[in-house]
């Protein structure tokens, strides 16, 4: 996720959970979506304006890194697989696939009759071109991390693709949602061409992206809408006004407060989004190198109060670095490990040699109000055990450079967006991970996670992942606060909106009611 991932976390962060359990991508009409309370008669066509909170970085889906871009491009592009509202991967451009027993070879049969927006039919050459590009097979530099384990991409015939991995990796499947573009197509950044339900129409930097219905979409009958405008409004207050005045129809990631304000006149959705908001420690620094200190701080925090204070109660308490949205891998019960207990906190501090507390700095990305708000509550709570925290707002660019990459900080607050695969979420804690900005080191954790990712047995893998979560909690590697809900406000006339445990806006299923 790009900068926005961390940032828009909170009232507005990745993903959600689909309440409906119907709905492979192939049967969108039947999906009621989480949004729909009352379903009016469906009326095809129409134009919808969706608010997005930031400008796009690239129109080329392979170059685009920002979550805010990918959420939009989700409507234009597709990969071999595509997630549904529960985060399950379903075949999309692939009609079916098989994985070799050693987990190294993936064979895909392509779906028939899929066309690109430019009219060209999809062939295995397109997939080969696209995935080789992502894996950097020519350049040696992969464009997406998830593709760096790819050894080769072959297209034995027009409808078959074979991908070979260097190593067994259970999380590789999620990478296959990566988008496919026409073979050799170089103009993606100016005029993107995909296979998705909507095709690119026009983009005005800083203002809007307009897409229109792709009539030749391989799933018949969808989308319902004729045109969707993604309007860039970076200011939440302005966004609210735009919503109220009817200038935008859908306001995803609307603030909780604002959601309540418009609840009367708009359809509203609020669901967990597979994001982990946490206070991290720079574990190599004193006093955070002492597990007792970290535990003391954990005991001092009242997560409920934070959720009430900054998310109006719309959030799920976390105990480790995984959201219950990923129910399959979620280790329940960890959230009770550090029940607020100031006495315990104080005595732990005393044991660690800080009877009077200490002073430290909490760096917060300044443009993310949710984190700044959280920081204020955290500061107030820690003060009760004598820990004096100074808030240091830092620009996002600085946060990335100095804190995330440079690991030069005491403590910070951030939202880590969830992936569909737990490995991709938990791998930041591996001692040699370049993104281990916690400076967390635990050989047991490393071996547990490494074992999990190569484990082919589902049940065993789940156990390993749960164990990894437990280790993090026991080590008090961070203060895991919450998975804040994502909120969406929609025009009352709209129905069929679906939420995902991913940072996407899917307009495919949305339709007007009469």
């Amino acid at each position, binding site marked *: 996720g790009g900068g926005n991932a961390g940032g828009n976390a909170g009232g507005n962060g990745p993903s959600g959970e689909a309440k409906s359990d119907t709905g492979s991508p192939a049967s969108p009409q039947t999906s009621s979506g989480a949004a729909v309370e009352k379903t009016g008669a469906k009326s095809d066509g129409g134009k919808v304006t969706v608010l997005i909170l930031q400008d796009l970085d690239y129109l080329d889906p392979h170059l685009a890194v920002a979550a805010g871009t990918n959420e939009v491009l989700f409507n234009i592009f597709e990969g071999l697989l595509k997630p549904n509202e529960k985060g399950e991967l379903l075949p999309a451009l692939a009609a079916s696939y098989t994985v070799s027993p050693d987990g190294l070879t993936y064979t895909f049969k392509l779906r028939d009759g899929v066309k690109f927006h430019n009219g060209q039919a999809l062939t295995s050459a397109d997939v080969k071109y696209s995935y080789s590009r992502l894996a950097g097979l020519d350049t040696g530099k992969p464009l997406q991390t998830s593709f760096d384990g790819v050894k080769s991409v072959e297209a034995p015939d027009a409808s078959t693709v074979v991908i070979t991995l260097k190593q067994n990796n259970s999380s590789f499947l999620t990478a296959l949602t990566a988008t496919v573009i026409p073979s050799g197509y170089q103009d993606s950044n100016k005029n993107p061409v995909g296979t998705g339900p909507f095709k690119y129409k026009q983009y005005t930097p800083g203002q809007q992206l307009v897409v229109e219905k792709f009539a030749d979409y391989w799933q018949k009958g969808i989308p319902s809408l004729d045109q969707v405008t993604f309007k860039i409004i970076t200011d939440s*207050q302005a966004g609210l006004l735009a919503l109220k005045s009817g200038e935008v129809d859908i306001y995803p990631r609307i603030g909780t*407060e604002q959601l309540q304000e418009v609840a009367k006149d708009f359809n509203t959705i609020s669901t967990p989004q597979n994001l982990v908001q946490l206070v991290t420690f720079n574990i190599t620094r004193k006093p955070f190198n002492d597990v007792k200190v970290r535990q003391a701080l954990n005991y001092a925090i009242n997560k409920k*109060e934070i959720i009430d204070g900054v998310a109006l109660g719309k959030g799920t308490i976390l105990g480790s670095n995984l959201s219950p949205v990923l129910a399959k891998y979620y280790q329940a019960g960890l959230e009770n490990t550090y029940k607020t207990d100031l006495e315990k906190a104080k005595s732990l501090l005393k044991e660690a040699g800080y009877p009077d507390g200490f002073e430290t700095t909490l760096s917060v990305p300044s443009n993310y109000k949710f984190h700044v*708000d959280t920081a204020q*509550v955290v*500061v107030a709570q820690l003060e009760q055990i004598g820990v004096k925290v100074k*808030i*240091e707002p830092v*620009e996002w660019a600085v946060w990335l450079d100095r804190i995330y990459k440079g690991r030069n900080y005491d403590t910070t607050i951030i939202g880590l967006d969830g992936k569909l695969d737990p490995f991709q979420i938990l791998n930041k804690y591996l001692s040699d991970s370049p993104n281990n900005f916690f400076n967390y080191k635990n050989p047991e954790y490393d071996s547990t996670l490494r074992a999990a990712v190569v484990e082919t047995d589902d049940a065993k893998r789940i156990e390993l992942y749960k164990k990894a979560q437990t280790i993090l909690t026991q080590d008090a590697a961070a203060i895991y606060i919450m998975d804040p809900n994502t909120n969406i406000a929609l025009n009352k006339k709209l129905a069929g909106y679906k939420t995902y445990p991913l940072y996407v806006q899917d307009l495919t299923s949305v339709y007007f009611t009469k």
Partner: protein
Amino acid sequence: MKRSVNLTLGITLVAILATLMLLSLFYTPYEPNAMRIAARLQAPGPAHLLGTDNFGRDVLSRVMVGAQTAFLVGTASVAVGAAGGLIVGTIAGYAGKWVDELLMRATDALLAFPGILLALLLVSVFKPNLYQTILAIGILFMPSFARVVRSGVLQHREAEYVRAVQGFGAGPFNILFVQILPNIASSIITTAALSFSTAILIEAALSYLGLGVQPPNPSWGRMLNESQTYLAKAPWFTLAPGALITITVLGFNLLSDGIRDARDRRG
């Protein structure tokens, strides 16, 4: 008649604010940073005269303490600006020739650049916190002070009363500090009062853009920024800091006008 109204009103407003600020050093109804999430966004009432904010903090206490921030930002940035401007201005005015040319071109350059923009750039250089904000705003003010001082020095240097003491053998120190400075003091004070209100406006704008004073320290600009979300639901939250900014700026503007009028009348 009307002129003294300006001054009186200005002094009154500033005095009220100063009292509020001083009072807040010793007493606030609540601890300004104390949160009571359960009591968030309460409307004004007997318990909280100006209501509470989104963390249940007492708005009155926070705007009171916010006055400290405002006065600190105002005073300190004006002090930085005035001190810098005084140095640059006197040097330019007294030395003349190329020194003057160089310094004035530099201040022209700074002045040619719109205020907020410069503050924005400067704040990005430094870190967004109170002291850096003060420094940035202070730097912003330097050119205008330098100009006032320089033109005062130039104007008065050739004035007959200065030539007269030169005739008694007065040296540069006497001329600058004993003769000239007191005479341009009122224009410096006018500029200072005006800059003070500008400082508050700039701080508010920076806070609105998310730069500026760091939380949880209450600053009016920051509060205005935080209150945005609750505009419809808790208007008192936005009105209190907004009105205080307005009153403060008004007070200092009136004060500045009043001083200038008084000076004009005498001259």
